[in-house]
């Protein structure tokens, strides 16, 4: 077999791929777009690790926290950095206030000169926000003059909101409550390793990728078979003019090759396009710069080789069951019955790969990534192998029913393989998604916990800054737009023995209205003192007896016991029943109204404000934050939500949902294409059926059954395999196996929905085909 002949045949096939007028082009383009979308997704996947690594690198490079206990002295190369992160609506803004202590102080990445006090440099996205009407409230809060922008090197994403402001006397603030540090360089090598991925999270990410990529692979395999029937006829014509069967196969391979190479080109185009688009979008609060998305060369080459190879392989495999005779294509009349055993080997093999890792997620152990990926892949491929067998067996047993049912069942019996192929992609996607949802639901407890905050009572809390006047601060918050109620609770802790802190009692100071947030009592007047009874006994009850003298806790640094303040529990102390405060905390000890509080104790209290907001006032949260910033620019009030979740976990989950939706849409599109192609081929038959009076409803229903039966079986199999995979994954993470029925139902529902949409979309063309024009022979 000479190379020349090979290349000649392949080239001929390539020409055929695009020959055949408009129809030929459409088919080739369709194939190419299908392959292209898959390739783009593959390239994106290979680029994501790089993008994440690049983000991490930049995050590290601008890190300004020293984790070492050692404090460095002021020098001409030191810089004081104070955190001033803030939140605007639901956006996080990274904020830092800088004060250079000498001429050699390090500049943060992306910044060319230190902003002077009262000035700031901002990221492009923040600048845009501040300049817009949307950002008016934030502008009030960040009351600095903008003198420049932060370069790409100083940002982890194109949409990141960040600023560096200049400040004065920051070291003094650091001694207070502000968080920050004095540093002599940016960047921290320790950061990366300290933030290592949790093995369970890593498992989730791996499985998400496999689950999203498998259907894409199935989709590519389906895409290269667009227009298969027509191609078979063309190959038969070639046989007629004298090409032998080997040549024919090579020509077919050439066709597939041409389509997939065009697909590669398109896919690269899609990818580059998507990369540029990536800069303008923000997904799950993560944005990237186009330059991040560089697929690693090895993986890119692998994609470039694997896709055409797979296309050719699929074509050759598809031709295996087809004898191309000169006078037409003969499908080997009775395909041998599908065998079960090797089909079962795949999922069983997958389980075998995963089995050794059961229980390893708990004790900080690690999963073998290759085994995980291999096992999950085998299980999912098992779906595509089992489905044709299952469809064949079930359909052969289906019996009586209406005409629509009969038409559909008979058609499925004759070509169950084609039907199974159509739904393979959806079945794989659904199986993977079910497994993942199960895994997520199972480990949800670990990563999402219901917070104890009672958001019906208060939605934000803020501390009164050190040294500030409590009443004035409360007044400022109360006057803030959107604040309905301010509850101020001041705390001081006292000990039962002078200079020791063995038994400590909490004293809560607040007016009567505020005290009702933490305890229930019959009546209250200013000057009252209450001993609080908790639901469970605690020893502070012992200290709350009238006449007990309580002492200020000694300060470690000062070491002096002499000037400690004491307070004696008054005789007229009354009883009150404890009640959880809005943070879910059960106050014990003693409650004092301000009138009963000795002046000397007042200085020791720290005050926390609970703010109840009016939900009808837009941006109430940001009005509060602005008020807080006016009081102390470095303190951000806390916003409560009823559920706290691990953010990275949430990101993966959202990613899965979006990815699954995209993959299903992609598969739905290919389903529609092949459906329409099939309908076109039956145009004449459909017309003649209409001629002798078949109702359109009957034909429409038969089309629906024709997809619904294999899809139903596919989803059943997908649910089974998905739940099995989910159970194994849960066992791997040592989480009790629970079937999350809502997610099983919703994923199968989405799969069924795709089929319904496809059927609905194919109805108008079906109705058009059923018009009697189809009977015309011209």
């Amino acid at each position: 077999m000479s190379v020349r002949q090979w290349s000649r045949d392949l080239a001929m096939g390539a020409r055929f791929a695009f020959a055949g007028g408009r129809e030929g082009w459409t088919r080739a383009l369709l194939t190419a777009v299908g392959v292209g979308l898959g390739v783009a997704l593959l390239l994106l996947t290979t680029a994501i690790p790089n993008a994440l690594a690049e983000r991490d690198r930049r995050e590290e490079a601008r890190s300004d926290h020293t984790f070492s206990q050692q404090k460095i002295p002021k020098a001409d190369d030191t810089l004081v950095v104070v955190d001033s992160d803030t939140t605007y609506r639901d956006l996080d803004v990274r904020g830092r206030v800088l004060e250079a202590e000498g001429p050699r102080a390090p500049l943060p990445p992306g910044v060319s000169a230190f902003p002077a006090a009262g000035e700031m440099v901002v990221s492009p996205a923040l600048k845009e926000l501040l300049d817009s009407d949307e950002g008016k409230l934030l502008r009030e809060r960040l009351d600095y003059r903008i003198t420049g922008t932060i370069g790409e090197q100083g940002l982890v994403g194109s949409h990141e909101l960040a600023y560096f402001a200049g400040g004065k006397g920051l070291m003094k603030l650091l001694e207070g409550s502000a968080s920050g540090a004095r540093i002599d360089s940016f960047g921290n090598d320790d950061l990366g390793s300290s933030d290592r991925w949790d093995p369970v999270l890593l498992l989730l990410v791996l499985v998400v990728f496999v689950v999203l990529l498998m259907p894409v692979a199935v989709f590519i395999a389906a895409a290269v078979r667009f227009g298969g029937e027509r191609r078979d006829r063309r190959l038969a014509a070639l046989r007629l003019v004298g090409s032998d069967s080997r040549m024919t196969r090579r020509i077919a391979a050439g066709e597939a090759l041409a389509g997939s190479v065009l697909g590669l080109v398109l896919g690269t185009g899609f990818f580059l396009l998507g990369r540029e688009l990536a800069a303008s979008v923000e997904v799950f609060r993560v944005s990237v710069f186009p330059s991040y998305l560089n697929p690693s060369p090895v993986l890119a080459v692998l994609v470039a080789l694997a896709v055409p190879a797979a296309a050719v392989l699929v074509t050759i495999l598809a031709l295996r069951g087809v004898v191309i005779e000169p006078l037409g294509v003969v499908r080997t009349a009775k395909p041998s019955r599908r065998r079960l055993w090797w089909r079962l080997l795949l999922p069983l093999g997958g389980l075998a790969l995963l089995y050794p890792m059961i229980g390893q997620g708990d004790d900080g152990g690690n999963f073998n990534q290759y085994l995980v990926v291999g096992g999950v892949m085998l299980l999912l491929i098992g779906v595509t192998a089992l489905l044709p067998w299952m469809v064949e067996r079930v359909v052969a047993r289906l019996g009586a029913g209406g005409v629509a049912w009969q038409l559909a069942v008979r058609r499925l019996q004759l070509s169950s393989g084609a039907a199974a192929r159509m739904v393979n992609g959806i079945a794989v996607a659904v199986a993977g998604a079910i497994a993942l949802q199960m895994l997520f639901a199972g480990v949800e407890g670990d990563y999402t916990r219901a917070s104890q905050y009672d958001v019906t009572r208060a939605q934000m809390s803020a501390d009164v800054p050190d040294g500030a006047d409590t009443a004035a601060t409360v007044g400022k918050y109360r006057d803030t737009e959107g604040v309905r109620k301010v509850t101020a609770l001041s705390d001081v802790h006292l000990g039962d023995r002078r200079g020791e802190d063995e038994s400590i009692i909490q004293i809560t100071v607040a007016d009567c209205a505020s005290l009702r947030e933490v305890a229930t009592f019959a009546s209250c007047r200013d000057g009252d003192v209450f001993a609080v009874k908790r639901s469970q006994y605690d020893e502070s009850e012992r200290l709350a007896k009238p006449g007990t003298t309580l002492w200020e806790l000694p300060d470690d640094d000062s070491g002096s016991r002499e000037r400690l303040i004491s307070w004696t529990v008054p005789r007229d102390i009354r009883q009150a029943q404890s009640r959880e405060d809005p943070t879910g905390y059960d106050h014990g000890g003693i409650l004092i109204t301000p009138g009963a509080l000795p002046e000397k104790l007042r200085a020791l209290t720290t005050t926390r404000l609970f703010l109840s907001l009016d939900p009808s006032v837009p941006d109430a949260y940001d009005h509060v934050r602005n008020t807080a910033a006016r009081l102390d620019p470095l303190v951000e009030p806390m916003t409560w939500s009823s559920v706290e979740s691990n953010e990275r976990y949430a990101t993966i989950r959202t990613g899965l949902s979006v990815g699954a939706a995209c993959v299903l849409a992609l598969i739905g599109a290919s389903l529609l294409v092949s459906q329409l192609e099939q309908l076109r081929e039956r145009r004449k038959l459909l017309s003649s059926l209409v001629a002798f009076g078949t109702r359109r409803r009957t034909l429409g229903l038969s089309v629906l059954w024709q997809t619904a039966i294999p899809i139903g079986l596919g989803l059943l199999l997908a649910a089974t395999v998905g739940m099995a995979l989910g159970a194994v994954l849960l066992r791997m993470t040592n989480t009790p196996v629970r079937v999350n029925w809502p997610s099983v139902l919703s994923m199968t529902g989405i799969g069924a929905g795709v089929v319904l949409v496809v059927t609905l979309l194919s109805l108008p063309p079906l109705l058009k085909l059923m018009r009697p024009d189809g009977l015309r022979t011209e």
Partner: protein
Amino acid sequence: MNVPPGSLLAAENLRKAYGPTTALDGAAFSIHPGEVVAVMGPSGSGKSTLLHCLAGIVTPDSGSITYDGREVTSMSDAQRSALRRSEFGFVFQFGQLVPELTCVENVALPLRLNGTSRKEAERTALAWMERLEVDELRGKRPGEVSGGQGQRVAVARALVTNPRVVFADEPTGALDSFNGERVMELLTDAARSANTAVVLVTHEARVAAYSDREIVVRDGKSRDMERVV
């Protein structure tokens, strides 16, 4: 309207255009119960369009069609479908048997569309297949039988509902003369004995010779040769 007395299906002044192409330009037609009428004419003359109009598959742009005293052109699509299901039968040149169904299921299909139970429909179908001498093909699929056999199955299917009119569009077009004549013989015999009218579109004289009279269509105009001579 000038309907010949006693006619079962009659049409007058039919006009139909597909885009710029005029298929029918004032054609007329009539047929009596039990009559076999051949529609002849060169290809592209509008024969098939005339048949499609008469059968209520296509609505003419103008003109009238009366079937059994009812105006077909003013019926709704559902009414016309019902008419085709219960009163008409169809035989086409090819592409009419559902490839997935067995022969007996194909023959039973029109009965099933009318709501007959599967068992009974297939029993009736089998009786017709016996009559057309294809009962031994009952379990075969159309892909497994010869052209002549398939066409006889199609004839059985056209007759299975005891229609009053059978429309046959080049029913022997894909057959050799021996098989073609056999199909015609069986079709016209069965039709005559059931008093079924047959509208037979053909360009073959020897097929047309099985008719009682012929109508010639040329350039969208029809000529009833019996009434002319």
